[in-house]
């Protein structure tokens, strides 16, 4: 039987030939799809398309961020446009905001390994952890000749998060400073003075105050004063904030000078024993009962429960200055709140605070190191004003005017209070303990979180849990340093 044929421009084409051609065509299409795309049109988070720039500019910079809200990501398009007005020879592509389903760090490291990283990027993991892997450009020489980013223009404790073996690998462009938020109206309802100056200055005072607000109904915790040392349902955040409580008790979790973990110092064991005693005394010694009784974080949880602080069920709460705006994301059961200094532990002598930065870095292999740094320097000193207007993260660079005040706080509490609370948090940066300085930061945080869970869950004593975490972290650190 003759194979079926189809006519093509007057010629006969067998079915096999047709399929063969289709196969070759498909293969060619596949190869074309895999080919480099030239200069693509970039799409911003807002959905607008930025056309590729005509080839007049000498340098085209690429800039990434790990994610964030739409309004935050779009800030970088405005900052880029402003920068291009003063540096017309440089064009900056639309900021690539997050990397889809894949982990940002994973994608970033893969592009560095492949030799095609972005020219500059924001990262949310410690630059030291990247630097130890040889993934970032050192910035000291560039900082020395910069307009805004000289070493002395950054709070020392905050810049420490970018420094490894004497070199600086990032700019902590913003650093949200921590404070102890409290509900003034709840204080006053119990006849307790609510001024900032009246806030407890020692852990013992804080513990006594906390008891005033804690009330159980059977096994349900209806209202609470304060949890040592953080929201027990969120061990990850607790691990970050533990560095502050350790500093308040005269110790630290990591010695960045000698590159040693110091988790099981006497002061740290005392700190966790203090938390355990507090849990036993005020919270039935049962962390599960606490976590099942409500959402003790600062935002609605996955189960849809309102945050206890905003709901008026939690009197005091550790959080960063970003919470001055974020707290209004949930219905607030009261109007007046304030933030106090962290009280000092039995073995400590001074108050301390902590911070959570956005770091600007230049990945190893960036095609335009100098130009990328110039842009980062501009963001740190000037672009930050656009950033702050959209999202009031606390600028860390000391050249930025200190009278910046978040709009949301002005709207809710008035100009005077907004200026006062902003000044308070700026002051908190001055007493910030060094954080984020470990080359194995994420591993360390997870081990600290595990130790906290073991201690509060009474699966191990503070000494046992902290000693195990210490050994694991130090082993991991030594391994990382050995190949650095």
């Amino acid at each position, binding site marked *: 039987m003759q194979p079926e044929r189809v006519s093509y421009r007057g010629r006969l084409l067998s079915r096999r030939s047709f399929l063969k051609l289709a196969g070759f065509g498909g293969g060619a299409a596949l190869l074309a799809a895999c080919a480099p795309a030239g200069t693509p049109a970039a799409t911003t988070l807002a959905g607008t398309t930025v056309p590729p720039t005509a080839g007049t500019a000498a340098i085209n910079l690429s800039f990434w961020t790990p994610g964030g809200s739409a309004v935050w990501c779009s800030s970088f398009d405005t900052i880029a446009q402003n920068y291009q007005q003063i540096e017309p020879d440089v064009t900056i592509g639309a900021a690539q905001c997050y990397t889809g389903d894949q982990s940002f760090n*994973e994608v970033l490291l893969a592009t560095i390994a492949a030799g095609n990283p972005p020219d500059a990027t924001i990262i949310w993991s410690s630059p030291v952890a990247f630097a130890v892997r*040889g993934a970032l450009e050192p910035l000291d020489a560039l900082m020395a000749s910069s307009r805004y980013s000289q070493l002395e223009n950054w709070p020392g404790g905050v810049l420490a998060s970018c420094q490894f073996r004497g070199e600086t690998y990032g700019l902590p462009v913003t650093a949200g400073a921590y404070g102890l938020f409290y509900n003034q109206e709840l204080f006053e309802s119990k006849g307790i003075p609510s001024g900032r100056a009246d806030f407890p200055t020692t852990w013992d005072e804080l513990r006594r105050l906390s008891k005033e607000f804690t009330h159980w109904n059977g096994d349900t915790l209806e209202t609470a004063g304060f949890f040592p040392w953080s929201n027990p349902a969120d061990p990850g955040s607790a691990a970050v904030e533990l560095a502050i409580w350790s500093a308040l008790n005269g110790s630290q979790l990591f010695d960045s000078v000698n590159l040693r973990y110091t988790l099981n110092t006497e002061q740290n064991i005392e700190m966790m024993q203090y938390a355990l005693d507090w849990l036993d005394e005020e919270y039935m010694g049962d962390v599960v009962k606490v976590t099942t009784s409500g959402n003790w974080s600062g935002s609605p949880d996955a*189960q849809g429960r309102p945050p206890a602080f905003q709901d008026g069920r939690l009197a005091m709460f550790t959080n960063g200055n970003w919470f001055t705006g974020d707290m209004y994301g949930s219905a607030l059961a009261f109007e007046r709140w304030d933030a106090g200094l962290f009280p000092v532990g039995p073995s400590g002598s001074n108050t301390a605070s902590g911070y959570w930065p956005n770091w600007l870095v230049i990945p190893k292999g960036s095609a335009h190191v100098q130009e990328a740094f110039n842009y980062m320097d501009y963001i740190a000193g000037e672009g930050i004003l656009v950033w702050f207007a959209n999202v009031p993260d606390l600028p860390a660079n000391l050249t930025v005017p200190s009278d910046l005040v978040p709009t949301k706080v002005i709207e809710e509490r008035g100009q005077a209070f907004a200026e006062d609370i902003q000044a308070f948090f700026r002051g908190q940066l001055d007493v910030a303990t060094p954080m984020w300085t470990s080359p194995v930061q994420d591993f360390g945080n997870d081990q600290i979180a*595990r130790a906290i869970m073991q201690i509060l*869950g009474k699966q191990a004593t503070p000494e046992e849990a902290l000693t195990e975490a210490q050994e*694991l972290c130090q082993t991991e650190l030594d391994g990382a340093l050995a*190949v650095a």
Partner: protein
Amino acid sequence: MSGFRSPWAHLSLMQRREARAGMLFVLPWVLSLLVFTAYPVLASVILSFTDYSIVQTPHWVGLQNYQTMFTGDPSFWPAVRNSIYYALISVPLGLVASLALALVLNMRAAGISIYRTLFYLPSVVPPIASTIVFIVMFEPQSGLVNTLIRLTGLPAPAWFSDPTWSKPGLVIMSLWGIGATTLIFLAGLQDIPRSLLEAAAIDGAGPWQKLRNVILPLLSPVILFNLVMNVIYSFQVFSQPLVIGGTTGAPFESMLMYMVHIYRNAFRYFKMGYASALSVVLFAAVMLITLVIFRSARLWVFHEESGPVA
């Protein structure tokens, strides 16, 4: 000694052309199998003997990753225990539930095809979305599940906030996705000759006896298939425990499943070599379990011609 003889030499011209065309058609699949499956598997095995953090060149460490796994990683054994617990409970429960559902859906009733579609629908819901729904349903204070439990007067567990109840909660969640297994059982049930069931009925067999002596033996190859697939899937459970417990496996590492442990080492700590070693061990363990199941199948899988293969 004879010279080289092409394996295609005995084929006619037409057969050669067809063979060549066939080769061309399977080539993309063979290539993608080699590039996207075989190569990563091989690379994982090799990387499991290295210290590798993506940016730096892999550094050969011999068996150190395996040694660390068994003796120096305090989260390894909890992750193993959690995954075994989940597999041991969720697989039999899922098989029984999906078989029961398939038996119901195999009935001749009005609108049965609608029910079949409805029971399959949960299988196409993205796991993260369904997990969030379950988190809300299992909320200890005011969630739907505990509200119903309290109506019966029983104590309501704290589910995903309590390490004692978090894994049972995850197992219950796994039943949400039994639609695919049910569908395979349903196909197997419809393949059973009606004549055998009718003959059993004539011989006086009731529903239970028909199920035990006719349906289950004839369905045993399908049960074997579902058992093997579900065991493999159960050790790969990832999205649900990650959404509930994060990378720390909260509460108290009770949700730290083996795949979450691999993910956290690979993409949080960038210990690609160690994560590869964990993956190799998982592969070996699942292969071993699968071989044991196949071996045991000789005792309980029925073949129509000869009965269980002795």
